[in-house]
């Protein structure tokens, strides 16, 4: 991971905190929906926070291929570059 990736991961962890009610430890390989046991609407609400934090669009279609924190870091990197 580059420094930038680290920063993005940290920011994502922070944004995810309100949705992580079971306080699951967040790693790059964490599956956002299944490991955190959050429903589809909450995932979309979380992604909306990510969009606003980085001032990017993440169309919902992209989410079907985005499962882990690492996937999401890649999406943010791609869309902020």
């Amino acid at each position, binding site marked *: 991971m580059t420094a930038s990736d680290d920063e993005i991961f940290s920011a994502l962890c922070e944004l995810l905190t309100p949705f992580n009610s079971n306080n699951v430890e967040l790693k790059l390989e964490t599956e956002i929906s299944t490991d955190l046991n959050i*429903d*589809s*609407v*909450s995932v*979309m*609400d979380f992604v*909306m926070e990510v*969009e606003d934090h980085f*001032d*990017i*669009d993440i*169309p*919902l*279609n992209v989410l079907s291929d985005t499962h882990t924190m690492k996937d999401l870091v890649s999406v943010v990197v791609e869309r902020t570059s």
Partner: protein
Amino acid sequence: MTDLFEKHRHIAERHEKMLAAGANAVGLTNDRILSPTRAIIKGRETILAGTNNYMGITFDPDCVAAGQEAIAEFGTGTTGSRIANGTYAMHQELERELAGFLGRKHCIVFTTGYQANLGMLAGLAGPKDTIFLDADSHSSIYDGCTLSGAKLVRFRHNDAADLDKRLSRHDPEGGGRLVVLEGIYSMLGDRAPLDEFVDVKKTHGFQLLLDEAHSFGVLGTNGRGLADEAGLEEHCDFIVGTFSKSVGAIGGFGAGDHPLFETLRYATRPYMFTASPSPASIATSMAAVRKLRVQPERRDRLRGNSERLFEGFRKLGLETGCDVVSPVIAVKCPDEPSTIAMWNALLDAGVYVNIALPPGTPGKLCLLRCSVSAAHTFEDIDRIVELFGEVVASGHGLMAVGA
């Protein structure tokens, strides 16, 4: 081998918990329907306060007779899609009637309200286009967006500034842009601030679809919905509606003025590859739409009943889904177990309301959702309020949120 049902095990477990607490709140059996506001449930007469039967028109003698005559004359079903053998003169007559009612050049009837959203969204938007949808949109809108293959951007509920921001940073890359709003949102009963969205439309340029499922027949001087009430119909490019609420039947429609609107009939799969609405559905819908046109007093009664229920709940200290009165009045509850307990207590006391739980609700809310009918009497409304008060006081609901 992976059992295909394994992914649904948590749903089954959640449902079992609900059943352990009482009746099946997400599949309750109506043994008999006595009227738009009464049913026999669990062997006793129950007030219906969660049916979306806004105009109370389901037992109107003229509508019932129209359905009976249509079955006798045209049969029980059409046995085919609109693009094969399933287009009858009555389908086209209803489309003309609705277009006239809405003041639109074109109207297409769909077999259900769900399919109306699927058909309109999948017909209008394609993979090169982008749909901007309100975060609280109905599932049929989400599903229609998915079927369209368009890029989907979700904006914060009823937040025109948020839509403006998302449009500003979006590159359409040559594709079209469609914004989807609802007249009345089904869970909380709040309206879209249409004037604010129209301002955004003037800035950015997009086509606007307004789903009037819960507002058609209900809002506006002419009963055409939120766009009618707000005086902004000319800014709404496409209107979607359903027959399963104020029209008291089953089916749906899409309407608009675009010169190529009729081509949707040959471009959208939810219209092309399903049986057309049955003769009885079309005939009862036609009779009901004609009633809505000439009986504005139904809307007046609905408004009076809605205000009475809203005020009644407020006096009890209950927190409702929104601050504006509409026929959808949702009571916020503390959590899932207490919501289920309150729902059962209300049913046992003689009133049926909808239970609405996450993820089917915005913001993880647990709701007891009431929908008001023009057919309710003031006595019915007062009884509903009284029973809510008794249930809250008895501790079933643990507490009235916001009290």
